[in-house]
């Protein structure tokens, strides 16, 4: 479904990603791990069209999306959450999720301002669908709160709800459990499985290893912007190359 073909990215001469290729199959949960600065977020930003790759192509459902704008990619069915949760702080909890419905609706400027019947009907529908999403993550009771005043755990959930509201086919989670405690993390695990069972493919970057080993069926490991391993969690945990990337080389330091 998602197919990366030797994707590279340079920032003013510095290579952030070199020749990364992998694919993600329908309805799986795939993880991307790697030490700090390995290029994981850069990869996400390229997939979602924040900036284009310097080289290589990305295919999503048979469409080449490597040079599309991020709003076009979103319309194809790619949605994401952010490392530092990014909720709109002037919008309420419900409004944040309603924003997720934006490109699934079409009332224009004047229809909205004049509150024409069509726009009114659509607005009602948006509200209902957003409430469904909130119900699913259990935040319906807090719908009128200001989004970024929620505790961290609930903000993570809200981001997921907002992403789900777009009816994505691919959901990208960027460090979804940062700032969650252990109970919340287990809860979140179940939510991720639930989302996969809805038929949504998931791509996740996460530092918390216990979580990622449990949640993913396949992993890609990046280091210095290069793919150094790909496989099941078991294979990854026992790969000497991966251990080296994380813990450093086993070598004496002479001086």
């Amino acid at each position: 479904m998602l197919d990366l073909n030797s994707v590279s990215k340079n920032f003013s001469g510095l290579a952030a990603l070199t020749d990364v290729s992998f694919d993600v199959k329908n309805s799986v949960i795939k993880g991307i791990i790697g030490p700090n600065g390995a290029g994981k977020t850069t990869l996400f930003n390229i997939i979602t069209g924040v900036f284009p790759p310097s080289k290589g192509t990305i295919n999503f459902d048979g469409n080449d999306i490597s040079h599309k704008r991020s709003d076009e990619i979103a319309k194809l069915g790619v949605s994401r959450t952010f490392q530092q949760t990014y909720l709109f702080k002037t919008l309420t909890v419900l409004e944040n999720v309603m924003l997720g419905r934006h490109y699934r609706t079409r009332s224009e400027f004047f229809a909205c301002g004049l509150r024409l019947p069509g726009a009114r009907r659509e607005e009602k529908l948006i509200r209902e669908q957003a409430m469904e999403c909130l119900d699913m993550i259990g935040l319906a009771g807090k719908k009128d709160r200001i989004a970024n005043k929620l505790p961290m755990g609930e903000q993570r959930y809200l981001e997921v709800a907002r992403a789900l509201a777009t009816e994505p086919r691919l959901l990208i989670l960027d460090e979804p459990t940062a700032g969650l405690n252990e109970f919340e993390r287990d809860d979140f695990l179940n939510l991720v499985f639930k989302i996969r069972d809805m038929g949504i493919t998931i791509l996740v970057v996460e530092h918390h290893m216990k979580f990622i080993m449990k949640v993913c069926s396949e992993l890609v490991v990046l280091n210095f912007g290069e793919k150094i391993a790909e496989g099941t969690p078991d294979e990854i945990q026992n790969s000497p190359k991966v251990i080296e990337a994380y813990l450093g080389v086993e070598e004496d330091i002479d001086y």
Partner: protein
Amino acid sequence: MLTDVIQAIFAALPVGCIYALVALGVALIYNATNIINFAQGEFVMLGGMSMVTLYGEMHVPIYLSIFASVAIATIIGMALMKVAYRPGKNTSLIIVLIITIGASLFISGSAMHIWDADIHRFPAFSGEKPIVFLGAAIVPQSLWVIGLTFLLVISLVCYFQFTIHGKAMKACALDRTAAGLLGIKVKRMVLISFAMSSALGALAGIIMTPLTMIDYSGGMLLAIKGFSAAMLGGMGSFVGAVIGGFVFSFLESFTATFVSGSFKELVTFIVIINVLLFMPNGIMGPRSKEGLEEEEVLGE
């Protein structure tokens, strides 16, 4: 024709110097704080007006008058910093911008009460008799303006290039956090840059008043032109700011000479919009770093 060209150049040179000094002042504050100071032109006015009173009317010795006029502007500049610079207080750009607009109105409005709404000048430093060159005339005050601006720019460049204090100030502009980690008191540096920038403005006002005359208003236009000149030059570069100032003054002078005096400002502001759109890094600034800004928003 040739005489016209030379006359236009003679007219453009001192005005360019003034624009350059204002641009330097704007750039100093912008680099240190990211504030566009709409009140920068008011320092020019304050310097000139204080000089009118002290030197022109009270006949205080010239050096003492200059010193006092610069001091007045500097103190007000430092007060402005206390009001406008509020790091960590979650102040949005628009609030700071409006504060400096407010400061500009307040200072110019007060100046109208302290002095009046008339146009003033005081006698030139060394006589009014024009020097004729290839049929075009230049007054001695213009030479003073050019010479003193040259000196000011040189000493500014030296300060930033050769003293540790100047380098520390540059460091604050480049990376506030890193500067703080080296023990540099960033807030004090910001205060000093406000002081320096208001002093520069005041000096510009002092040297230009015998030439162009001065009244309480007009500071804000000067500030906008100064900002645009600094932008055209590339915000970080002093040489660039000076060049930017001259580009605008030549543009205005030549439009006034060869097209029409009333359209000179029109040309300036059309150029300003185009500079903003097409040369956001200016002529001396760094080349644009593709993608880096976005990296900061969504980065690792």
